[in-house]
């Protein structure tokens, strides 16, 4: 089985493997600091651009 560098978790974040730079709405650059990073896709994280698990509190229809 292949090992993707970018993985979209159903109902959850986007996982990024390896080093990436994420640019947010303001143009601020956020370099990854972990072997794998989770990018928020529900727009409700309080640690944006990173996932903080908040998607799990949303009703299913509002999850990514």
């Amino acid at each position: 089985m292949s090992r993707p560098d970018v993985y979209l978790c159903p109902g959850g974040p986007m996982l990024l493997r390896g080093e990436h730079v994420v640019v947010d709405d303001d143009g601020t650059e956020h370099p990854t600091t972990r072997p794998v990073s989770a990018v928020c896709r529900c727009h409700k994280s309080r640690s944006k651009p990173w996932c903080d698990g908040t998607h799990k509190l949303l009703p299913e229809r509002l999850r990514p």
Partner: protein
Amino acid sequence: MTCADTCIGVTALPKPRGRLSESVLARLGDQPTHATGLPVPESEEDAAITLWTLHELSYCGFEDVDDGAERDPDLFRVRCVLEDDLERRLRSRWPGVPDVHLATGFFDWVAAHDGPSLARFVQTKATEDQVLDLLRIRSVYHLKEADPTAWVIPRLPAGPKAALVELQYDEYGAGDPERLHHALWARGMEASGLRPETGAYVDEAPVEVLEQNNALSAFGLQRRLRAAALGHLAAFEATSSLPSRRMAQGLERLGFPAEMVAYYTEHVEADAVHEQVALRDICVRLVEDEPRLEPDVWFGAWACLELENRTARRLLDSWGVS
């Protein structure tokens, strides 16, 4: 002491809680040639502190205890009997494999099994003394953190093995000892005026906390239970990110030092990643490779939630919170 020094055998042996622990501790302490048979445990407390002590011989050991005690055949036999008994008691309470698809239903299943939340209580209501109680008791676990699961690595097929190492690499600070999670914890303890070394507060730990730690060590140490260890990991990570945010907010509310808050804020983001990796790349792929292991993935996950619920009830009761 610095944080990097936490895994040295600095901890004194715990206090006994019954006949078996008395005998085992005497044998470890000052009677290495003691040859008479060891008694049966007189209570769950007695069994739990004995098993915790015997497991500790495989982690950092104890000051003044011979490193060879780990392989003392009589003590090893006691460890096996106590591990089997703990597993039997857990399996007798386990409702069995749920009718849930592992890959798509696991997180909702975890959420449905959520019990009383210590983190929610800390966030809004706990006093400073109650939080200090909690930190002392949690230190039994957090000073090991990823260690029991590290024993599982050589027992896995390639896919889950690579993913578990990827997760553990982050737990162990990605090469930086200062970022190692149990070093972050030790720094938070020191800054909070608490002792940072392994097992410093084990005598205060109620039986529920000892069993929580013992189950994880028993899963990690036995190849047969490798899938339970990974199910436990997935459930632990899936119940860490949001509660860590609540813990950080509660610690800030009470004016705890930044180092202790930092331990929890690190886990908000780290465990939002780890819960995905632990489920999708580790447990789901393990079950794809070895389908017969799926029941134990669920058993380990259930054990993690059940033992945390018992611990939470015990602590909330001891604080007079219903």
